[in-house]
């Protein structure tokens, strides 16, 4: 065990003994996300670096405190990428933080979510135990899939020491098209494309324009461009747009407070709420900036078969950041928290105030 890991273990053990909470933190770029933060900061960045990377295995194993930019640059050198395009929300973002937050970017609609690419994790639980689940291989059904459970658990179940991720080649060709369309037409057409074998890797509707990114073999992208039509966006403009979308620096997100993230089935009709909307993921992700009552938004999302997160701003304490859970499911959450963190050390209350 390295000194950095030893010191993390010691801190967690001491906190467990004293019944004190700790606040796990990488670059702090996602401090805004989740319920209010409590406890002394436990900085994860001392445990950084790439443990193993073999491009032919399509797997990288990396320490939690490694900067996301460093990881992405290492992969890009070998022509590979993190297919889920995780948002950074700041230059200091770490891969541990990205996995804990579980957020995915524009390519999620075609490539899959962050959790889909997690092959294994090494964590410290709330007793300071060093545990490894999953591994570095593509298929693994030995034991329960704890690695994917850790993804998106907001640091409440374990401190991520290492994570093994499946990576993919960067597409040979990409092209971005722009079509002027009202919201309901955009939703309809995105779903129509979804049912066709087209190389659509990302979509976004904002301010009356539908942006479509095609990725794949040159021939496939060329053929799809003909079928879809619209204006071709130049490469620099396209790259800037998709990055700004992922990083929430697009004009829509500027001053978008409170910002709601509403996840619904892709065919859900335009949400009837006052305020502005931006759509991603072929219709499945709706960003809302609205003054509407939280209960109204949650009700709307639930009725469509989805859920609503108070992503930025608003009254977190009053509203709750994450969508309320059904009682039987909430009980399982509390049970899991007790198994992984019996003394309530790790990011207590960051996800739901009850645990």
């Amino acid at each position, binding site marked *: 065990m390295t000194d950095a890991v030893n010191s993390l273990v010691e801190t967690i053990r001491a906190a467990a003994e004293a019944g004190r909470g700790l606040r796990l933190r990488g670059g702090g770029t996602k401090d805004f996300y989740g319920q209010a933060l409590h406890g002394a900061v436990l900085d994860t960045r001392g445990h950084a670096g790439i443990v193993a990377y073999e491009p032919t295995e399509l797997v990288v194993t990396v320490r939690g405190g490694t900067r996301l930019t460093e990881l992405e640059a290492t992969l890009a050198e070998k022509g590979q990428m993190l297919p889920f395009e995780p948002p950074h929300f700041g230059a200091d973002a770490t891969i541990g933080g990205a996995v804990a937050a579980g957020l995915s970017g524009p390519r999620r609609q075609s490539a899959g*979510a962050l959790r889909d690419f997690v092959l294994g994790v090494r964590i410290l639980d709330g007793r300071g135990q060093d545990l490894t689940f999953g591994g570095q291989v593509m*298929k*693994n*059904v030995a*034991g329960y899939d*704890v690695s*994917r459970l850790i993804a998106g658990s907001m640091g409440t179940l374990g401190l991520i020491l290492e994570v093994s991720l499946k990576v993919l080649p960067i597409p040979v060709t990409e092209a971005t098209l722009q079509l002027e369309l009202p919201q309901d037409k955009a939703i309809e057409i995105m779903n129509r494309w979804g049912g066709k074998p087209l190389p659509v890797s990302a979509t976004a509707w904002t301010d009356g324009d539908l942006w479509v990114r095609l990725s794949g073999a040159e021939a496939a992208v060329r053929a799809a461009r003909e079928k879809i039509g619209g204006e071709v966006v130049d490469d620099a403009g396209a790259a800037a747009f998709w990055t700004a979308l992922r990083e929430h620096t697009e004009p829509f997100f500027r001053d978008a407070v409170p910002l709601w993230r509403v996840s619904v089935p892709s065919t859900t009709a335009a949400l009837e709420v006052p305020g502005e909307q931006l759509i991603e993921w072929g219709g499945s992700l709706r960003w809302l900036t609205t003054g509407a009552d939280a209960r109204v938004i949650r009700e709307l999302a639930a009725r469509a078969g989805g*859920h609503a997160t108070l992503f930025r701003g608003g009254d977190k304490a009053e509203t709750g950041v994450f969508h309320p859970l059904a009682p039987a499911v909430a009980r*399982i959450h509390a049970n899991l928290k007790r198994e992984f963190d019996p003394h309530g050390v790790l990011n207590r209350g960051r*996800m739901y105030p009850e645990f």
Partner: protein
Amino acid sequence: MNVRIAGIDADRQAKVAARLGQLLPEASVLHHQEDTRPYECDGLSAYRELPMVVALPASEGEVQAVLKVCNDLNVKVIARGAGTGLSGGALPSREGVLLSTAKMGKIIHVDPVARVARVQPGVRNLSITEAAAPYGLYFAPDPSSQIACTIGGNVAENAGGVHCLKYGLTVHNVMRVRGVTIAGEVIELGSEALDAAGYDLLALAVGSEGMLMVITEVTVRLVPKPELARCILAAYDDVEKAGNAVADVIAAGIIPAGLEMMDQPATRAVEEFVHANYPLDAKAILLCESDGTPEEVAEEIERMTEVLRKSGATEIRVSRDEAERLKFWAGRKAAFPAVGRISPDYYCMDGTIPRKRLGEMLHAIARLEKKYRLRCPNVFHAGDGNLHPLILFDANDPDELHRTEQFAAEVLELSVAYGGTVTGEHGVGIEKINQMCVQFSPEELEMFRGVKRAFDPPGLLNPDKNIPTLRRCAEYGKMHVHRGQLPHPELPRF
């Protein structure tokens, strides 16, 4: 003293059957031996046990009723789909109720626009694709058992198929699962959106081998059928060269729609059975598939051919039409039954290793064949590093069975030592429970038990599978292999 038949306590059996009989139609509760016999084993037929009672609920409400009774009477419950599992996951217990989903086989709804299908757990894998086909859609995970196995079983095992390298495993293609806990409560995990609030309990449900809940409904993702698929058959005069070719394809930035490997004993067994016209003098063959638009496929096949040629292929054939492509695959998909014809019994392993160790593993298996005096043809999901060595034996010969088990244990432990896992897609069940002690530390196993407790506090759902007790590990006496490192790497293993 109670009367026992086949180890079953007759009083208790009568009591459980009577309670279930009050809630389910008479024909849905079985306890006579002649009725329960068909359920005594799954695809791992070396293990057999008669269940105390078989229950065949026809709805989620009936599943709830069964589970409440079992919880109340402290009776174990083992869920069963089609019973094609290869690790004994659905092996019944003489003290337990076997809950079969055979009466829950309805496709509830196919939504071609949202590209999802909502189905009951007993629906067969292939029927989903058949129901989606009119819309140009299909369900991607295609286990070779797809004409028989159920979606409930696929979810419980996280089943894969020959196309999962590009299209993912069951976990990547299931959006939402409804299930009933041992307390009889209905829970819904995941959603028909792309994510759900809270912890990713859906990920825990997938691959949970019936130990956390009984699955009562599944929403799967449907994907558009590619316009065209073509397959390359490449022959090699050396297994290691074929193994390296797999890595070369991936290194070239290509993700084939399928990338499978068979060694010579496997191709020979298959050829007699289905006449796929495989080159029989080759030491190994690769099947490498491309799919997409016609333009895309043409471009990719060209790149693949070049890589395979450079990697030393002695012969390369590209399927000229759909009939020929299907013929290439017919051999691969019939590998298990074909091997079943040349030997009284075979034992299928399921380790997964990093691709770069494929060649090494094949040589190791060849040495083990000599050590245990048993033959072992190999079929691999090579693109994923998932191995299915098939040890041929005769179960009527106790010594052969014993040697087979030792042979298998060595291969699985070697998989862990190579940095892999004891099971890629068939599950732990009862079969690989000892090897779990090798792959995980006592603390990690205890955390698995914690996960089970979180869903199933009394521990009644399929309790004797998958996660070994500490005592069992102590009796097995094998050390936990730490993260791909053998305890004494300097010692020769063979």
